[in-house]
């Protein structure tokens, strides 16, 4: 019955990868530190973009791992380790959060509301520094716990090949999903929406969720395509297995557009000043171009880039589109955050470069570290054979 006769030869990543990762990390770190010295407020705003971007990839990857177990998908099983490795970034989230915390007064003006601002004072039971930190801690511990449990079971399966471990993870995934929905929504409200504490939108949690899944999918797709084309996984994986990656990227691109459009249309149409001001801030000076650019970058390009069926399986196209989508997620977060700092026009300079470089380096280093310690393919997973044999 057992058909786990999969041949897997562990291949080390070339040393060059680590060097590049280290170089990016150091360059980013230098710029970030310099940025914090020169302009702490602006750096703190960049910090929140970088932090929410990293959180997207880390927590989104954990979601992808969970959803594979829960839905019983097999096409993704040979690649699941990639998302597992990326989800280990959860451990490092405090590294980017602590500098943010030191600058909490610079970004979140709900920390010191004007005495005349009755609305903000009314929100104080939720928006206060202690509760804010408490929430972050709870979110992080939940994510950390599930990261630990999922990967522990998955890695143990490499040795024991025990099917019960899959079953355990399926159950864990069922428990994780509602917790994920709640934590990611309130994370979005806390970290992004409350930068403009007067503004509110019930769909905002879903908005960040859609971008989070896209970022995690795109990051995984880049790594999967790069490594699979060089034979780091197992033999016999067909390009059909790429199809679902392309299709999901396409689907979530549409989902993001749907959510973003719903939010915009309803606020524009109702035309209530307590809601429209948020969009009007993004319609001043050069922000107009950035807002229109968001539609093109985040929706139009990936939509047409991934629309046709062959493009969802073409490794080159996938590589280009998933890198683009990752960039688009950063763009989106920039568009959400920066209008609060630089009102009236886009602010773009070397300070904005620090965090992307730092994060790119961090992701590469974390991935290299994990791939050295563990197998890149879950060789004990009962679904692995079916995953390799997957055909459309």
């Amino acid at each position, binding site marked *: *019955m*057992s*058909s*786990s006769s999969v041949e897997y030869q562990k291949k080390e990543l070339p040393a060059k990868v680590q060097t590049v990762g280290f170089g990016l990390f150091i360059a980013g770190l230098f710029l970030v530190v310099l940025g914090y010295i020169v302009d702490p407020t602006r750096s703190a705003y960049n910090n929140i973009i970088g932090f929410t971007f990293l959180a997207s990839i880390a927590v989104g990857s954990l979601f992808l791992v969970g959803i594979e177990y829960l839905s*019983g998908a097999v096409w993704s099983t040979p690649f699941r380790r990639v998302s597992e490795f990326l989800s280990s970034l959860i451990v490092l989230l405090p590294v980017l959060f602590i500098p943010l915390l030191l600058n909490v007064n610079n970004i979140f003006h709900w920390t010191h509301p004007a005495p005349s601002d*009755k*609305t*903000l004072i*009314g*929100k104080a039971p*939720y928006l206060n520094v202690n509760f804010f930190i408490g929430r972050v801690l709870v979110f992080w511990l939940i994510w950390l716990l599930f990261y630990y449990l999922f990967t522990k079971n998955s890695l143990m399966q490499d040795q024991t090949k025990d*099917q*019960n471990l*899959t*079953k355990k993870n399926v159950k864990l995934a*069922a428990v994780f999903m*509602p917790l994920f*929905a*709640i934590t990611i*929504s309130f994370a979005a*409200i806390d970290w992004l929406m409350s930068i403009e504490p*007067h503004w*509110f*939108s*019930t*769909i*905002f*949690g*879903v908005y960040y969720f859609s971008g989070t899944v896209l970022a995690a999918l795109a990051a995984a797709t880049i790594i999967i395509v790069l490594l699979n084309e060089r034979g780091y996984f197992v033999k016999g994986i067909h390009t059909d297995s790429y199809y679902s990656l392309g*299709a999901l990227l396409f689907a979530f691109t*549409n989902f993001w557009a*749907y*959510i973003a459009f*719903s*939010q915009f*249309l*309803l*606020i524009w*149409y*109702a035309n*209530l000043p*307590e809601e429209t001001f948020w969009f009007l801030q993004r319609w001043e000076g050069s922000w107009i171009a950035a807002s229109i650019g968001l539609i093109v970058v985040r929706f139009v390009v990936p939509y047409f880039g991934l629309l046709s069926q062959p493009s969802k399986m073409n490794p080159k196209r996938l590589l280009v589109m998933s890198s683009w989508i990752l960039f688009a997620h950063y763009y989106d977060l920039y568009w959400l955050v920066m209008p609060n700092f630089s009102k009236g026009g886009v602010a773009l300079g070397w300070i904005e470069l620090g965090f992307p470089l730092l994060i790119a380096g961090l992701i590469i280093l974390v991935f290299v570290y994990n791939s050295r310690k563990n197998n890149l393919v879950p060789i004990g*997973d*009962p*679904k692995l*054979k*079916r995953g390799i*044999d997957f*055909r459309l």
Partner: protein
Amino acid sequence: MSSVDYTQELSVVEGKQALRELDDLIAKPLETKPDKKFYIALSITLSMLSLLVIGLGLTFYYGIGMWGNNNPVGWAFDIVNFVFWVGIGHAGTLISAILFLFRQKWRTGIARFAEGMTIFAVMTAGLFPLIHVGRPWLAGYLFPYPNQHSLWVNFTSPLLWDVFAVSTYFIVSLIFWYVGLIPDLATLREKTNHKLKKIIYSIFSLGWRFSNRHWQNYEMVYLILAGFATPLVLSVHTIVSFDFAVSIIPGWHTTIFPPYFVAGAVFSGFAMVQNVLVIVRKIFNYEHIITIDTLEKMNKIMLLTGSLVGYAYAMEFFIAWYSGVEAELFAFLNRALGPYAWAYWIMIICNVVSPQLFWSKKIRRTIPVMFVIAIFVNIGMWFERFVIIVTSLSRDFLPSSWAYYTPTLVDGMILIGSFGFFFTWILLFTKALPVVSMAEVKAVVDGAQPSHKDN
């Protein structure tokens, strides 16, 4: 049953029946005369339908003053019923299009029936805007066409978008359903000895000869239609939600409405499909085609969508407080604690609490329990629309004009009658067309799929 073997794909259809037997079983209701049970059921639904006729007759004769609508509550049962039935119509195309794109093979047993229900539900829903306009003979003006009166529709109104969204959805669902039927109609054409039936099946099977080339084109058309239908399914309830959310009525104007309405529609649609299929599989002996596994998966989707709806309720409540807007907070507190609190709590218990029972595998696989839960879900989803529409209107901005809405007998007759209309179509469908797709089920029987490796 206790432990799953993850190395093997689960069978969709239980047992290894010969393909011929499957054909015979699925075609049986069409080849036999209806029995007594059928006529009893039909007489019940026709009686209910006659209530609709009477209710509508009274409405047309005396005007919509026969309804309970009053001054602030200008929208009530008519729009509640419309949204409810459009919601029911969401499961079919979701199962046949979205689950198809997700390559979920278990959909094959239930897809045809769910698609049929979509069509009948959208037809039922379509009645309500027609009667709600008060002068249904003028409804033709809803379609923008150049006319001598220079009457032009209001393109910026979501009510008009509804006309486009629902009619497009209806047409595409109908085409999708019909395309799926073609191979089965050809099978029936080959099987039947009845002359008239043979002529009808021959015409509607469009010369299908089961050739390789036919199948190839068919599969491509099916895929493309699934691709078209997917955004349509999502757009319909999105636009229905716009009917409310573009306005500035507290409790209506909230940005989460579009995805929340879609989730709710799928939720209620699945509940209705599950309810009807539980009966159909029993009566027609389809237990091995529409298996307990399939029903369990439907229950899981209900758990998911029910929880999404619960998420939306909670998020709305939280943001109503967080926004600091007095009118928003009042609207939500009024829902939970005001004169319509009874309706609100029926909604919460039926929609959020009852599907949580599906966390238990045992309950997901126990037919009587899941049947009752799905009925609860349908009640809850009807009340959800009632709560949204009526509570917000009955306590609007001017306290001097507040009023309590009470439905009249005619309202009730029309509501019950709409069920009669829907179920009459369902009953006729079960005797007129194969309620399970023969071609698709045969393709998912164990061993039907050629494997690229020798097993």
